[in-house]
């Protein structure tokens, strides 16, 4: 396990050390927290815009950052010789592959978790804001939620900058970790102020949001695993080409029971069980998990048969 964690931690630190990770983290969380301000554009449902923004940010992060990062983490290691230096130790190739992809996936999951919390907070303040005008006794938490979401996120960013300046901590890594923690604090403040009870929670599309994020995350993680597996044999442009082809082909897959309804206009509708062509709530997650296992085995096997050096 020590070997696995050493490899996974290094892969995660590598991804978290990239400036683009911090930019995406900051922009996505701030945008989601700021969206309840557009309360006249709810598209018939309070919080819809916030949910779409959260899901779209996750999709962008997954496909345009996590997937290339997984490909780079594997390809660059093999080309630069750091993989050879690691594999010359008592490290098996399947362990190396699994640990590297786990490290990248961990960063993606951290981003997804932060976005889920930001989206829940934002969506909650939208719902409470919409109820405020109609029902007496409802606390409008939009202002405090906005202040907590934007404030805590900005504070985390600045705190990481100060820690870097005065203590030499890695700015990008700590900014991402602190911004993720800031989402927990923002959610706590917003739900606390709003008097979130079981009855209020039921009115929220909370479980729908978590479900949508889970389906989308598993989908992205399939492509993360696929990119890493292909990077054991192909150069980066080849990997990106194959991933793009796989993405394009998902629109014509005749397995509508397994994949989200890609024809749905709203991403949340496409991903939630009631919205699209999903027949069983667990099917997309099960299909995704099977594909992740498939690409893990394939990647390990491809690396096992390759000369490294």
């Amino acid at each position, binding site marked *: 396990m*020590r*070997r696995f*964690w*050493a*490899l996974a*931690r*290094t892969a995660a*630190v*590598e991804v978290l*050390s990239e400036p683009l990770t911090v930019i995406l983290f900051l922009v996505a969380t701030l945008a989601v927290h700021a969206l309840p301000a557009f309360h006249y554009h709810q598209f018939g449902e309070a919080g819809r815009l916030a949910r779409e923004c959260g899901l779209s940010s996750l999709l962008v992060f997954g496909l345009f950052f996590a997937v290339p990062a997984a490909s780079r983490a594997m390809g660059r290691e093999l080309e*630069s*010789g*750091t993989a*050879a*230096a*690691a*594999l*010359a*130790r*008592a*490290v*098996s190739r399947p362990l190396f592959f699994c640990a590297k992809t786990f490290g990248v996936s961990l960063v993606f999951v951290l981003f997804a978790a932060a976005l889920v919390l930001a989206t829940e907070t934002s969506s909650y303040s939208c719902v409470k804001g919409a109820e405020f005008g109609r029902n007496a006794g409802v606390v409008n938490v939009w202002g405090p939620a906005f202040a907590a979401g934007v404030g805590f996120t900005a504070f985390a960013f600045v705190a990481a900058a100060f820690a870097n300046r005065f203590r*030499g901590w*890695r700015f990008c890594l700590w900014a991402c970790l602190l911004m993720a923690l800031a989402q927990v604090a923002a959610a706590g403040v917003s739900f606390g102020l709003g008097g979130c009870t079981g009855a209020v929670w039921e009115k929220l599309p909370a479980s729908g949001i978590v479900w949508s994020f889970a389906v989308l995350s598993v989908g992205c993680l399939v492509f993360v695993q696929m990119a890493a597996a292909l990077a054991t044999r192909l150069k980066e442009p080849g990997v990106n080409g194959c991933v793009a082809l796989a993405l394009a082909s998902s629109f014509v897959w005749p397995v509508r029971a397994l994949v989200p309804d890609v024809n749905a206009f709203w991403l949340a509708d496409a991903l939630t069980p009631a919205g699209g062509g999903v027949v069983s709530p667990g099917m997309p997650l099960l299909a995704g998990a099977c594909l992740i296992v498939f690409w893990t085995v394939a990647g390990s096997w491809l690396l096992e048969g390759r*000369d*490294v*050096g």
Partner: protein
Amino acid sequence: MILGLLTPSAGSVKLFGLSPRAKAARAKLGYLPELSHLHPFLTAEETVLYYAGLSGMSRAAARKRTSELLAQVKLSAAAKRPVGGFSKGMARRVAIASALVAEPELLVLDEPTSGLDPIGTREVKELITDLASRGMTVLITSHQLFDMQDLCNRVAILSNGKIVGGGAVKDIVEKSADKRHALEDYFAGVV
């Protein structure tokens, strides 16, 4: 092939009586690549800790060993700096510390002195001599024959994938007219 990284097209390699792909064999091995392949975003300390982790060492033991090794390669003062900003000589010393972290029985060094300045070369040579004197087997591949004459007990000359000459360095030097360039003359003679 000794490291289990390349598959031989013919023949076989045994490392401590096992296949080089066997983890038990590679656990007794330390390796220094020709170019110091290091993660530029890790500090010197984190780099050595990373390789200690890959060797399966406990965290406490890894920290103690890392501290000792960084002192040994004279990098304690730069332990918290990212290796991406290191000079070639400093990166080489971090790579050497990483190769030694698991106290290997066999140390494989690929061009250990390439690209180093004279002081760096002398320090690396002293370190190798010290390790060998402590009983560690050191296998070096190099084109720096002058350095190898100082360092090695035995040499093998490889040309087109075949051993075309070799033997004890002491014997080669004794038979040579120019003692200072004995190994270079021997190499030129057999290749």
